[in-house]
């Protein structure tokens, strides 16, 4: 490890920039020791979305200025989390493109263009949420459900593996997760009657190493939680990047809604492992434990939010925790060795559950399933939070969550499944006359208590980043990019980007200066001090 870091440091000084990435597994594993880089989707394997850089802090953030902008050529949402290594930024672009950008100027060093077939289905935009890097290779998962390996130096395609047949409703939007020799990739298509899985591929060859079906087949444990043949369209997709505990050798990954979304009658039972977090052996993909947040969900409350692995005291003794604010409106604290439920509380307005019982199972309010004539519920279909990043600061010991308060009228219908077509069995409408809202919340991950909240004008679609400068960065639908005091929630800086912010922020250092990067509209904006 040490020689590599020294080499990088020397080369950066001599050449100025652009050494080209050499990112062995050990660098990602020890991401905390090089805060100037951003080497994996969440910044580290634990899902912190935290930067140890502290040049930009509470006292000077008000002077933060735009450094450069990069714009895509595509009208779909630009949701990438950039990676930064050795003087170069690597991004994906909608629908399934990639580019390397010069950190000094923002100018592309190469661009990779992938033609996506016109008959690909994607429920909610032809987006891509980022790349993975390992050694000198980048990994890009495409909307037509392929996993590609690209030469980080040139963007040249090294291999192209079919993950699933997109014609049957599968698609991929997730940023892959690179481990020591494997690339973990999830899938989407939960509105198209697919059967969910999580895959691992050999990083060198692209050969599949294992597949974990998130909907168990006949003879497997959990299969009995699906009525009849409903498991075949059970969905439980894996469309947001999970996390990894290198000591326990476990991957933690959230799963999506059961299909069809709104008509639970055709799939009576708990519908495992939909709306769950699954802990899988990284070497084999075998299930170690699972925890289901919303048994038999009928409100499309995917549990794909990136979980956060925290070592903290829980009721006086040190515990290995996994913490996540779920789309169903509750914050959950679990033991990450066993999956045992420790505590949980609502962090968003919710009307569907009275409370969580001692095992974390919701005690349901009566009669809250969608109806043909409509049923109003909070959270709404987009949840108390959604796919975008949550953050944990080891300085404040707080978690930061972009919270949505928006109810929905849910309609139930009956639907006939046909291959590759939308299969939701119902629909949704907003609540007339109710102006929805949101907030950035600070939550204590060991008690699930709220410490502060900063109100947002509308329910957010952007994630948050916390930094050692005592700041939380985030974005709003109306184009505001902002920094809050991580201890008090007080706003310290904001910038109007001119288009909705729908990405996750990162921070990196280049030529001795700290930068913040975040997408808004078709642009990637990079901010630094003058």
């Amino acid at each position, binding site marked *: 490890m040490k020689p590599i870091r020294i080499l990088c440091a020397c080369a950066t000084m001599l050449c100025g920039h652009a050494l080209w990435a050499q990112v062995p597994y050990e660098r990602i594993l020890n991401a905390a020791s090089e805060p100037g880089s951003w080497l994996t989707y969440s910044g580290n394997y634990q899902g912190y979305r935290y930067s140890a850089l502290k040049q930009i802090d509470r006292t000077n953030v008000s002077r933060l200025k735009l450094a450069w902008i990069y714009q895509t050529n595509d009208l779909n949402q630009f949701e990438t989390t950039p990676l930064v290594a050795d003087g170069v930024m690597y991004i994906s672009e909608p629908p399934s493109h990639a580019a390397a950008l010069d950190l000094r100027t923002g100018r592309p060093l190469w661009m990779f263009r992938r033609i996506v077939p016109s008959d690909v289905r994607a429920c909610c*935009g032809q987006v891509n949420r980022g790349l993975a890097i390992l050694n000198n290779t980048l990994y890009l998962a495409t909307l037509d459900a392929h996993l590609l390996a690209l030469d980080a130096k040139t963007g040249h395609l090294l291999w192209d593996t079919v993950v699933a047949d997109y014609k049957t409703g599968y698609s991929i939007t997730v940023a892959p997760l690179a481990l020591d020799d494997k690339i973990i990739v999830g899938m989407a298509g939960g509105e198209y009657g697919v059967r969910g899985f999580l895959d691992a591929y050999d990083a060198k060859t692209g050969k599949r190493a294992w597949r974990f079906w998130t909907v168990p087949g006949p003879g497997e444990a959990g299969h009995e939680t699906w009525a009849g043949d409903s498991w075949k369209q059970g969905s439980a997709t894996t469309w947001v990047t999970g996390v990894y505990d290198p000591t326990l050798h476990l991957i933690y990954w959230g799963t999506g809604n059961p299909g069809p979304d709104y008509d639970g009658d055709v799939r009576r039972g708990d519908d495992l492992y939909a709306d769950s977090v699954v802990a899988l052996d990284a070497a084999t993909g075998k299930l170690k434990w699972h925890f289901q947040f919303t048994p038999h969900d009928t409100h499309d409350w995917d549990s794909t939010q990136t979980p956060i692995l925290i070592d903290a005291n829980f009721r006086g003794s040190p515990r290995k925790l996994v913490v996540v604010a779920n789309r169903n409106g509750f914050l959950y604290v679990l033991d990450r060795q066993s999956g045992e439920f420790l505590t949980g509380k609502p962090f968003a307005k919710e009307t569907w559950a009275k409370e969580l019982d001692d095992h974390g199972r919701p005690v349901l309010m009566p009669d809250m399933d969608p109806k043909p004539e409509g049923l109003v519920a909070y959270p709404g279909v987009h949840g108390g939070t959604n796919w975008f990043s949550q953050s944990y600061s080891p300085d404040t010991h707080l978690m930061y969550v972009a919270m949505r308060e928006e109810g929905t009228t849910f309609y139930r219908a009956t639907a006939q499944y046909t291959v590759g077509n939308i299969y939701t069995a119902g629909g949704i409408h907003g609540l007339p006359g109710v102006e929805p809202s949101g907030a950035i919340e600070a939550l204590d991950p060991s008690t699930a208590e709220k410490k502060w909240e900063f109100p947002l004008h509308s329910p957010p679609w952007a994630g948050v980043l916390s930094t050692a400068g005592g700041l939380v960065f985030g974005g709003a*639908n109306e184009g505001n990019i902002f920094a809050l005091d991580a201890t008090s929630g007080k706003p310290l800086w904001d910038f109007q980007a001119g288009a909705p912010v729908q990405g996750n922020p990162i921070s990196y250092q280049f030529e001795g200066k700290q930068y913040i990067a975040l997408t808004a509209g078709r642009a990637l904006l990079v901010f630094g001090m003058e």
Partner: protein
Amino acid sequence: MRAIIAWILLLPSALLAAETGEKLFQTHCAPCHGPKGEGGRGANLAVRKLPRAPDDAALAAIIATGIPGTQMPATRMTAEESAQLVRFVRSLGKSQSAAVPGDRANGEKLFWSKGNCGQCHTVGARGGHIGPDLTDVGARRGPAYLRTSILQPEADIPENFASYRKLIYMPDNYLRVHAVTQDGKEITGERVDEDTFTIQIRDDQDHLFSFRKDELRELRKDWGKSPMPSYQGVFSAQELQDVIAWLASLQGAL
């Protein structure tokens, strides 16, 4: 012969489809467009030509994506359901409702003179900006809704249907706000735009204000309030009918 057999075989499924289309309409559309598509808060759909939907593909697109800047929301359904709903909506236009009775020319005169409606409302190039633009109000609202709006302006303030629109960029509702600056200046008017940190307000004298919210001591939102007076007793029954007839004829540029 083959054709007849095919027709017989198709008949039950065609009937079923029509039934499904009507059911979808009653669930998703009728609350605003009326049970027979005669209009209300939403447009009158019982017309031979839908101005925003010249063909079936355009109508299906409107159902799928809504109409930005209006209260028409997006509705997700299968391609088959959408096709059935489109067929049903088209069938409404075959029994086109009669034109709204009343003397349109007199209605127009009353609107600009006795009603002084143009002080706040725009029609075409004429009028004020304080209230909603009425240039195409006849294409957006049914006559019964227009009558209620004139007699009880606060019965239904144009409101927000923000759900399932990912891009909440500008407010599409009509909201009265009252702001007090740190140095005590008071502004009352219509919210033009708002974000987390700022708000833009047009006051009743048509002045535009832009504030950062930390410059304000107080910001009150008067949900459900309208500066418009009731016209109960201002217009006679016949005059009111004439004004409605004129407003219903306003189809805008489309």
